[in-house]
């Protein structure tokens, strides 16, 4: 035990609102909650958040404009983490601040848990009440851990036994990006293209819905996203010519309510008279069909394999689509709508409201799937509801989320494929020499297929107004090989060699000002920075590296305040919660894999892993320390070896 006992600050939302009323030093979060909960017609972004600067720490480069804000609906209890992004706006911001810039150097491992599966661990754990829920990579086990008992014993485990056929159909390791809690159930996707709901109390399967056909190259790796009684899921398979879609299922029955394809006719894409893209080149009938050579749109991918956001006021969901298929562009002349794009859809009906294609006729595998953080900003003196998106194509976009107008597009990572995005037309200006030709090696294309940033989600802090993201500094030599479509095999054709861009570092973690379109600070990393980001009211941001360093940085200055080397590389998403003992914990999976394996020949690259690490100040918890501690009750672990070597 530490000599100096840290008073535990547990954030009860009821207390919070009172605190926000009475304490100006409380910061922006309390004020936002107050605003959202008590004032229904609140207009965000019109207030200057003096409170954010009142902590005494001056930002390195204070934004000259009013700080962006966000709606933190659905307003989950401050100490819990019920969905991968924590809120609809995808901020990955926690109001907890018992761990802060002043004490984070005393963060230590409190306990750990190995789930026994060896592939890329890309998920965040969920915490509800005194239970933690984990979802693993293939074979997609689920665990409930009882945080209230010593050793956090297993309450239940669930082994869905997805078909091993899916292993060889997943492009980028057999990863899973986690589950979502809804109405007493943990809902997640299986690699073999099924969605399952498990009773959060018992671990019994409530429903299982087959959404696609793994034998044809359709897999599922994304985390479901829940609004009300609907759960939204999408497919993976952008490298296999899988026809991309987003579907809404009923939370309680698993019945499919509607499905919107990313390519094809307006009917298939769920485009109706309400669809109003901002730019003229995206306006017209059946463009998801006619912007392709005849017969190619339905093997044109546009898979939906990452994040979804939701604006409750507009009742719109936002999500991106993957690269077109095949990846060899000369085989598919045209814009290839609606691949490498973002959709805004009515959350109830699934009908498209607007769309914007980041990379028309994508020639480099620049999926548009990365997260969209929904912020409310002052832009050119006017309040705007925007989404902030760091695309694989290395441009950061601030887009009006009511209509799809691009307000700002600026490069955030090293790139040489475009001289910029024309804000009049919304079109990127492509550097002609960077367009690959079949069979001809094109050297030094930046960024490579995995982009200036991949799926690893960024975080936003209302206290700084900044967005924090792990990004890449990578280039590739590219040779295209024309492909035939053979179901269940790659529809790909890109032969690549990847290496670091100028500077020699593969990774970087940055703070981005989404109003100015500028980096405020950044921290270079030798290895890839492929973990999610977490921002807290303690003015900390957390992330991990592919070689296994887990770090806490000062959100304002970028100073590294704490690091710890974990067993494997970190590509999971850090989260924070309050335990039953009222302590604040920070948790992250260590288990390298996924696209981070492109750098696996680097000296020092770690082996794979399967361990969740949980940290607290001084490592204090009921799961370690003096006295007779032992595991009592619970359930045994699931057999994790389905298809992984335990039986033929």
């Amino acid at each position, binding site marked *: 035990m530490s000599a100096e006992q840290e008073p535990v600050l547990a954030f009860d939302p009821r207390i919070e609102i009172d605190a926000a009323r009475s304490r100006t030093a409380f910061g922006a979060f309390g004020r936002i909650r107050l605003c959202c909960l008590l004032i229904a017609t609140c207009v965000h972004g019109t207030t200057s958040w003096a409170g954010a600067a009142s902590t005494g720490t001056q930002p390195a480069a204070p934004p000259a404009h009013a700080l962006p804000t966000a709606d933190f609906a659905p307003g989950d209890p401050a100490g819990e983490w019920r969905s991968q992004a924590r809120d609809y706006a995808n901020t990955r911001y926690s109001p907890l601040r018992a761990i802060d810039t002043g004490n984070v150097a005393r963060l230590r491992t409190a306990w750990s848990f190995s789930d026994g599966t060896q592939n890329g661990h890309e998920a965040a754990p969920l915490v509800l009440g005194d239970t933690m829920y984990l979802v693993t990579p293939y074979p997609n086990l689920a665990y409930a851990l009882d945080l209230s008992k010593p050793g956090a014993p297993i309450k239940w485990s669930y082994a869905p036994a997805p078909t091993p056929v899916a292993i*060889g159909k997943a492009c980028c390791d057999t990863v899973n990006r986690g589950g979502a809690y809804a109405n007493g159930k943990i809902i997640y996707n299986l690699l073999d293209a099924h969605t399952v709901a498990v009773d959060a109390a018992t671990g019994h399967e409530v429903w299982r819905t087959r959404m696609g056909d793994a034998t044809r190259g359709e897999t599922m790796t994304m985390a479901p996203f829940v609004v009300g009684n609907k759960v939204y899921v999408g497919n993976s398979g952008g490298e296999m010519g899988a026809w991309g879609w987003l579907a809404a299922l009923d939370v309680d029955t698993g019945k499919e309510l509607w499905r919107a394809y990313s390519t094809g006719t307006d009917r298939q894409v769920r485009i109706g008279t309400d669809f109003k893209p901002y730019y003229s080149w995206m306006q017209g009938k059946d463009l998801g069909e006619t912007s392709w050579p005849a017969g190619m749109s339905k093997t044109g991918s546009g898979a939906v394999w990452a994040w979804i956001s939701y604006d409750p006021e507009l009742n719109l969901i936002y999500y991106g689509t993957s690269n077109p298929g095949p990846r060899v562009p000369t085989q598919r002349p045209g814009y290839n709508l609606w691949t490498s794009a973002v959709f805004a859809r009515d959350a109830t009906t699934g009908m498209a409201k607007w769309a914007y294609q980041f990379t028309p006729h994508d020639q480099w595998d620049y999926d548009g799937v990365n997260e969209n953080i929904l912020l409310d900003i002052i832009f050119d003196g006017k309040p705007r509801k925007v989404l902030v998106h760091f695309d694989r194509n290395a441009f950061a976009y601030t887009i009006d989320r009511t209509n799809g107008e691009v307000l700002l597009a600026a490069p955030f990572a090293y790139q040489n494929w475009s001289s910029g995005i024309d804000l009049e037309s919304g079109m990127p200006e492509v550097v002609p020499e960077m367009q690959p030709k079949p069979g001809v090696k094109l050297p030094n294309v930046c960024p490579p297929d995995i982009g200036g940033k991949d799926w690893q989600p960024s975080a936003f802090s209302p206290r700084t107004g900044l967005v924090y993201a792990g990004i890449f500094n990578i280039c590739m030599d590219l040779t295209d090989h024309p492909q035939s479509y053979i179901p269940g*095999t790659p529809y790909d054709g890109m032969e690549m060699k990847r290496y670091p861009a100028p500077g020699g570092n593969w990774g970087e973690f940055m703070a981005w000002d989404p109003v100015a379109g500028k980096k405020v600070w950044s921290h270079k990393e030798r290895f890839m920075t492929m973990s999610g980001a977490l921002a807290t009211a303690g003015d900390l941001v957390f992330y991990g590296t592919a070689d296994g360093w887990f770090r806490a940085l000062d959100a304002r200055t970028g100073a590294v305040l704490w690091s710890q080397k974990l067993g494997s590389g970190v590509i999971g998403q850090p989260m924070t919660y309050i335990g039953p003992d009222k302590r604040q914990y920070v948790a992250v999976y260590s288990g390298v894999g996924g696209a981070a394996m492109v750098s696996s020949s680097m000296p020092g690259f770690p082996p794979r892993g399967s361990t969740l690490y949980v940290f607290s100040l001084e490592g204090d918890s009921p799961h370690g320390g003096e006295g007779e501690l032992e595991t009592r009750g619970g359930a045994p672990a699931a057999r994790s070896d389905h298809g992984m070597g335990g039986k*033929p």
Partner: protein
Amino acid sequence: MTAQPRSAVAAALALLGMLVLLGACQRPQGGVTSNVAPAAASTDGDKVAAVPLGDVAGVAGSTYTETIRNPFTGDPQAIAQGRQMFVSMNCAGCHGYDAKGGMGPNLTDRYWRYNGVPVSVYKSIYEGRPQGMPAWNPSLPPQVIWKLVAYIESLGGTAPAGAYEASLRGDRPGDNVAPEAQSTSTQPASAGKDSATDATDATAAASPPQARPDAGGKP
């Protein structure tokens, strides 16, 4: 500049058409042995299906595995054609353009989940394997599969023909064998001189052992 891609696509489509025709021409003759064309696979063709997928219970071993050889092993033209097919039939998409693995396993190292002798590699392509490897029968005719195998053999990681049991046991050419273990071995006598030569060649050409034998990896 545009002529080359167009002709490449045309060639790939023509080849695909040819393959479909060839596949359609094959007449089933019972079991899965029928598609091994006698001309290409010589007299061993009918025996391919009898090659066991794993070890054989209760007996010393399968004699078929010692006699079935790839008619194209070491043939530079066949290896080049095999390489061409490896890229055009999307094998490279999973196993990598350097065949060092990605979605699918590395084919250049000595780790073979389903045995590394040429006839076992043939079976893996022909019948598929349960973790995502599609069955290429009847899309690819036997000659093409043997050429693919010849290309994979040329990468140095396969076991020599006749070393089926050695590959099952995890023996590598040049390894020490403990005297007690040797007494259970039936391989040296049956593999013969020919196999020993192959083994030496394989040792020279093989890539260094991989620390990471996993299938997952690159995007």
